[in-house]
């Protein structure tokens, strides 16, 4: 096993750790604004580390340049998309989680809500 393969393994293990942290955060954190941390930060870092390890393992080829392009694109695009969705949620009136409101169900006041329980009343 060459030195490059060992460095690539270290990068990939670090990336897989951050991807696992991201998945646990998405499943366990209490509300939407907390879950954006899992998508915006740890997912980006885990993706970049994993793809950097794969690029080091591949050596100097054209495919490596494309992998580096994906790394730069994920670095720019992933937090941007997460920020856009979080801004839309804030404009729709989704309230952040606090200790006082943690027992109440999270509801959207406007028509962004996916809850369609009001439709039968309108038909009557």
């Amino acid at each position, binding site marked *: 096993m060459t030195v490059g393969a060992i460095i690539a393994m270290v990068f990939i293990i670090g990336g897989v750790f951050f991807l696992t942290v991201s998945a646990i955060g998405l*499943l366990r954190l209490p509300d939407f604004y907390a879950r954006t941390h899992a998508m915006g930060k740890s997912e980006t870092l885990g993706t970049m580390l994993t793809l950097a390890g794969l690029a080091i393992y591949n050596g100097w080829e054209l495919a490596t340049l494309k992998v580096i392009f994906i790394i730069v694109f994920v670095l720019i695009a992933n937090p941007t998309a997460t920020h856009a969705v*979080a801004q839309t949620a804030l404009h729709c009136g989704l309230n952040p989680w606090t200790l006082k409101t943690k027992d109440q169900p999270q509801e959207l006041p*406007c028509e962004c809500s996916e809850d369609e329980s009001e439709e039968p009343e309108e038909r009557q």
Partner: protein
Amino acid sequence: MHSFLLGVTVFIAIVTTACLYRVAVGKTIFDRIIAAGLVGTNGFILLLLIGFLFERIDMFVDIAIAYALLNFIIMIVLAKYFERIRGKSQ
């Protein structure tokens, strides 16, 4: 190195399958969008790893670029769509 990449691929696939819980259950629609974006991001990592396993990285990296671009466009379009719904309701 081949068995190491195979183990990493299986592990990321299991983690991604666990994230599908948030897509199916998620309390609000935005949780579903975020979780779908995370599943898409893990998806093209899996594509690149499968490319290394099959030793056809020159083909799979192009598909991974297309997946990354589509994943970004989907999230931006959904954010703009729900922003427009809010504008109509007020």
